[in-house]
């Protein structure tokens, strides 16, 4: 087990900057997720950690050993980093049985005989695949392949475990189960894990900490709660949990709190402290924080018109219109009337500077 320190890591492809001076660390035994849309640099970061790709500049150390340092020209190849990487495609070797797939890495580490056998069986039991030792990958289902792939990376007890969208090839139901199972396995083995995904619900469910990435840079680092409840930028607010985002005009009262004016002219109060100057801002409100059928004397009450509704099973989704502004609202029940009042608690309104999502959080 080991910790990872990444300092000012950059990766340029010609004039394209895939990674721009990214720094973070992973603590021993931590489950850290790199979250972001495709092209945000998360897979590039993972490939740099794994040693499959040589970054342009920066420094990486794993368990106290420097594996990459552009200044002193150190680059340790993947072969010598002693990591485990699980691929999105699993990359199981099709010509080897499940047993051989796992044994290969043990063989390279000179772990033979009874110990190898025991480790392989132990690891396979851990992923509930003990009955499949002599199968070939082509004879396994997607979910089974995924388990074998994980067993293959765990059996030789790598310093850290790197997971590259390991659940994305599973169907929705299987994915949910695999998520619980993966999280449980990680806690049991205690292996330091870096997990790459574009799926925010996976990230929230699994991680100790999440790094949200956008266009080659880190947008926010924090616990799942922090990232969800207090997004640092409009981008994070939108990417994690799909907020209602809209433009408005902010007026601060000089005492830290303020009011925003919607495009329809209606005003909402925002709880302070606000560190933004008056002027145009981007506002974010979580769909589940908006309350329909509100009493007229509540805070920030607005009249709405019901536009569309869809039934999600456990919850309902309503799209309502306030003036020209649409809001998505998640709630338990949707009132039967086409019109009504909604309220947005002032504590649930976040305002961000309009100059693209890169600016600092103000609230």
């Amino acid at each position, binding site marked *: 087990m080991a910790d990872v320190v990444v300092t000012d890591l950059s990766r340029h492809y010609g004039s394209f900057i895939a990674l721009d001076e990214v720094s973070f660390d992973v603590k021993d035994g931590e489950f850290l997720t790199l979250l972001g849309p495709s092209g945000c640099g998360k*897979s590039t970061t993972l490939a740099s950690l794994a040693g*499959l790709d040589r970054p342009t500049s920066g420094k990486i150390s794993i368990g106290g050993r420097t594996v990459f340092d552009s200044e002193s020209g150190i680059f340790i190849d993947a072969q010598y*980093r002693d990591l485990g990487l699980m691929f*999105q495609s699993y990359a199981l070797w*099709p*010509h080897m049985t499940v047993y051989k797939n796992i044994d290969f890495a043990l063989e390279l580490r000179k772990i033979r005989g009874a110990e190898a056998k025991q480790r392989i069986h132990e690891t396979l039991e851990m992923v509930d695949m003990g009955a499949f030792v002599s199968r070939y990958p*082509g004879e396994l289902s997607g979910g089974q392949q995924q388990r074998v792939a994980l067993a293959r990376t765990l059996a030789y007890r790598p310093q850290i475990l790197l997971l590259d969208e390991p659940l994305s090839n599973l169907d929705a139901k299987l994915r949910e189960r695999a998520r619980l199972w993966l999280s449980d396995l990680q806690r049991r083995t205690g292996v330091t894990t870096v997990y790459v995904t574009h799926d925010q619900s996976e990230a929230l469910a699994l991680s100790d900490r999440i790094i949200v990435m956008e266009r080659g840079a880190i947008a926010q680092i924090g616990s799942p709660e922090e990232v969800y409840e207090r997004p640092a930028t409009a981008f994070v607010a939108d990417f994690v949990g799909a907020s209602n985002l809209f433009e408005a005009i902010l007026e601060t009262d000089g005492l830290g709190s303020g009011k925003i004016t919607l495009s329809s002219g209606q005003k909402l109060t925002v709880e302070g402290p606000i560190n933004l100057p008056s002027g145009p801002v981007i506002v974010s409100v979580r769909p589940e924080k908006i309350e329909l059928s509100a009493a007229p004397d509540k805070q920030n009450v607005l009249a709405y018109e019901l536009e569309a509704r869809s039934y999600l099973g456990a919850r309902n989704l309503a799209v309502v219109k306030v003036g020209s502004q649409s809001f998505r609202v998640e709630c338990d029940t949707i009132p039967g009337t086409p019109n009504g009042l909604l309220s947005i608690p002032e504590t649930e309104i976040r305002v961000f500077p309009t100059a693209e999502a890169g600016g600092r959080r103000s609230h």
Partner: protein
Amino acid sequence: MGTALSVPAQTQSARVRAQGSGHTIQTAITIISIVLVGIALIPALVQMFLDKPLYYPDARFTIQNIVALVSDREVTATFGATFLFCSIVVLVSMALGTSSAILIGRTDLPGRSAFLAILLWPLFLSPQVIGFGAILAYGPAGLLTIWFSDATGLTEPWNLYSVPGMAVVAGIAATPVTTLYCLTAAIQQDPNQEAAARIAGAGSLRILFRIILPIMRPALIFAFIMNIVNALETLAIPLIIGGPVGIKLLTTLIYDKSFESAGLPQYGLVSALAFALMAIVGVLFFLQRLALRQSHRFVSVGAKSIQPKMLALGSWKWPAFLLMAVYVVFGVVVLVGAVFARSLTFILSPDVSFFDAVTLQHYSDVLSVEVYRRSILNTLLLAVVGGALGTAFVAAVAMVAQRSNYRYRRVLDAVAQLPRVLPGLVVGLGVFYASMFVPGIDLLRNTIWLVLIAYLIRFLSSGYGIVSPALLQITGDFDRAAKSVGAGWTTTMTRIVLPLSKQALLSCFVLLMILIIKEYSSAVFLMAPGSEVIGSTMLSLWTQGLAGPVAALAVMQIVLTSILTSIVTRILGVKLHG
């Protein structure tokens, strides 16, 4: 109510009619295929049991021809040489082809794409031309032989006119095909499988032997068998290199026995030999199916999220580069270069300056002498007409076999694959026999259209091998969708499947043209004044010792192939390898 009922009834009957017309066409296509392949097989089969040529009225039944296969000294004497020849050809071709494919497809070898481009040249050359090139460069009086012995002082550093000598040349001629088979397998490998091994701690060499090569196993088995088949049935190189010094292989024996000047041609023995050859090839294909059936479905799932670099050769980089360069220069460039140089000179020798010997005489001969010119035009005509007809035929066969519910479609599928086990000589022989007995076909005797029939039979499997997998990749939902809107089989095929398989059909057309321009062995029995092709003219000129015009014709053959393929690939945008 009445009208409402009559409408579906009408469409129903229209649909039945459409299905019916499909059935007629399907039957016609199947019958034509069986007849064509039968033409190549049946007369030779009958001849095998006759003591005199089939056309003699007093020919009697005998099994002497088959007995001769194991008792005739002359026949059994070829077995050893044939075995040695095949072993060396396969060894050379597999070693060079596999290493080139892996170096080019999987590693960071410098100049990979340039190597690949040159390495594939021989695909467009007939084995004859490669044989000529080898004699001009490496024969006893060849340029490189003399340079080498001058430089080292060794007299006779190697002997091209030997079984190993001609086997190495045939192996080099067969290498590009091996490279192509393996290259596809090498490129299509999920690079993550390599990356996974690297992460697990494996080095480059270990990845090569434990991961890359084993995963390529199906392709390697396929290439191995194809190489044996090719080595067994190759005629041109043993004929021009081994012929003058009396080395006989199975194929050259068949050739000699058919053209024996003294007495009757021993067609019975020839047929028996041909069927023996076919039987060996057939067994090999059977073994291949067996071997490949056991290989597990090699799956790889999903997108490649991490694109790792090619396998790093490290300190092996430049030695590997050097080895590739040696192969490409001496195995490809020199052979082609010698033919080009000879076509432009009176003589090719280290003692005579190239510029003193330079001449355009050979080209002016080739273009002005009636026989030469005719063989070029005939080849061109056969390539274009044969390519087009062949593609149409292959498409029709593939659609019945792969995309219909015709009762005998499995039979048709087998028939279409059968010519793969028919050596070119056997096909030529069969068509030659047919031209003597089958009414209708005899009218075509001594014309190039008879040659065309032989080519269509010979290359049916080659074309089918391109079109049928492509058809399998087009989802059957398209057909079902067409059917659901009321289209019959014929309409579905011509309006939906045909346009969707355009790329494959164009590739098939290009392949057939290249094969036809190069083809020689199936045409040797069918040559007559007026129906010469480049291959046959080259051979007769070579036996007359006219190396200059042969070289010029060889260059014309190369030029013809390049022009035709570049027209089709440039204008129609066909990808050649794929």
